[in-house]
């Protein structure tokens, strides 16, 4: 005990100005020893270390469990706002590329509607708007979900509803089979005029990549939640009606140099990531000024 006190005292002693060389290093060593010397019995310390380790591991593991539980919990407070669909004349251009559709599906069948109608169903805004924004996204991309749920409503209110912007949602499903299936399902919903509602519902139910959130069963359940004609919706999904159009759209994205989502084309100006509404507004106003 006396030895420990002595060391502690040494550690607290302020340095003298006239020490011999090497004394400072010796004092450092003493201070370090004093600092690490336990006033606990040797039997107690390992026990306390074991307890601290156990507690640390348990708290860390509990946080992991809470995180997984939180992710697995279904989304709550779903509010859907119907969005009017207006027309757009642009047709998709297909280009070759390595994007592959989800495997193990039934043979696809050709869609009845024209390419123009195909895009009209997921376009909002005045057809004569001076600015056209194309958003390329993936349903499993968290940044796309964040953008769609937090910024898109403001963009729509400020720029689409005021006739400044015509907005087109474009699919670039590159994150795996569930991205592809979700895109196909969204087009089946678009056929019934509910593309934007369905898109929003999918984003509200994102749960990591290819973990089953957008399995065929869940996609059918979302359609039922929106009150879609289930027979038609299920038939489109089962027959892979929209597989080829989605594949063509993904290839078009590649041909345009899209390699991240979300990617926006504001007229011809390309931006990646999640821009603020203010930043988008600035770019929109720039384009409007340029068009005058």
């Amino acid at each position, binding site marked *: 005990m006396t030895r420990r006190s002595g060391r502690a005292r040494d550690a607290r002693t302020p340095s003298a100005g006239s020490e011999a060389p090497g004394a400072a*290093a010796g004092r450092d060593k003493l201070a370090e020893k004093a600092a690490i010397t336990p006033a606990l019995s040797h039997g107690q*310390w390992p026990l306390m*270390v074991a307890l601290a380790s156990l507690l640390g591991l348990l708290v860390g593991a509990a946080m*992991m469990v809470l*995180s997984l539980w939180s992710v697995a919990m279904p989304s709550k407070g779903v509010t859907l706002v119907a969005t009017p669909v207006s027309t757009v004349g642009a047709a998709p251009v297909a280009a070759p590329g390595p994007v592959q559709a989800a495997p193990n599906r039934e043979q696809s069948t050709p869609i009845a509607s024209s390419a123009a109608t195909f895009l009209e169903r997921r376009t909002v805004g005045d057809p004569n708007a001076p600015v056209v924004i194309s958003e390329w996204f993936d349903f499993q991309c968290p940044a796309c979900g*964040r953008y769609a749920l937090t*910024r898109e409503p403001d963009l729509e209110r400020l720029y689409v509803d005021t006739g400044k912007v015509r907005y087109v949602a474009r699919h670039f499903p590159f994150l795996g089979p569930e991205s592809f299936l979700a895109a196909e399902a969204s087009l089946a919903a678009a056929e019934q005029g509910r593309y934007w509602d369905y898109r929003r519902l999918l984003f509200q139910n994102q749960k990591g*990549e290819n973990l089953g959130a957008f399995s065929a069963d869940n996609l059918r359940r979302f359609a039922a939640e929106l009150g879609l004609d289930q027979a038609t919706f299920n038939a489109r999904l089962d027959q892979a009606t929209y597989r080829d159009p989605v594949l063509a759209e993904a290839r078009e994205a590649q041909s345009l140099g899209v390699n991240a989502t979300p990617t926006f084309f504001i007229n011809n100006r390309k931006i990646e990531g999640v821009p*603020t509404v203010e930043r988008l507004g600035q770019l929109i106003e720039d384009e409007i000024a340029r068009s005058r």
Partner: protein
Amino acid sequence: MNATLTRWTVPCLAALGLGDAAYLAVLHWVGEPPPCGGYSGCADVNYSPFAEIFGIPVAALGTLLYAALLAIGLMRTRTVGVAWSRATLSLYGLVLSGAVFMAYLTAVELFVLHALCYWCVALATITLLLLVLLARDVWLVGTG
């Protein structure tokens, strides 16, 4: 490593970790993705469902952890003997829990999200360094 360095390395690393975690937490609340040099990984990670636990941003929990580490780490610089040992053990337990959770989050980034957030990797590295330093201190106390 001399005594002064041992004592001050922990609060310095904790301050760095606090800055990183607080920055990520603020960006999460504001809704901005962390700057990532044109790579979308930071946004993908910070907007993923794993970035929150029942609505509480993980970065905010990290901020609390690092604030506690900084406070205890600074307190430890002024203590010796039993108080120093106890502070060291508290820091070690806290950092170990943080390191376990960080390892899980890094695995999620690599194997579930397939995206890396540089800010999160920096925080995981700081946590690992702290764990090594504090494990060393705990071992030194045990060996007298």
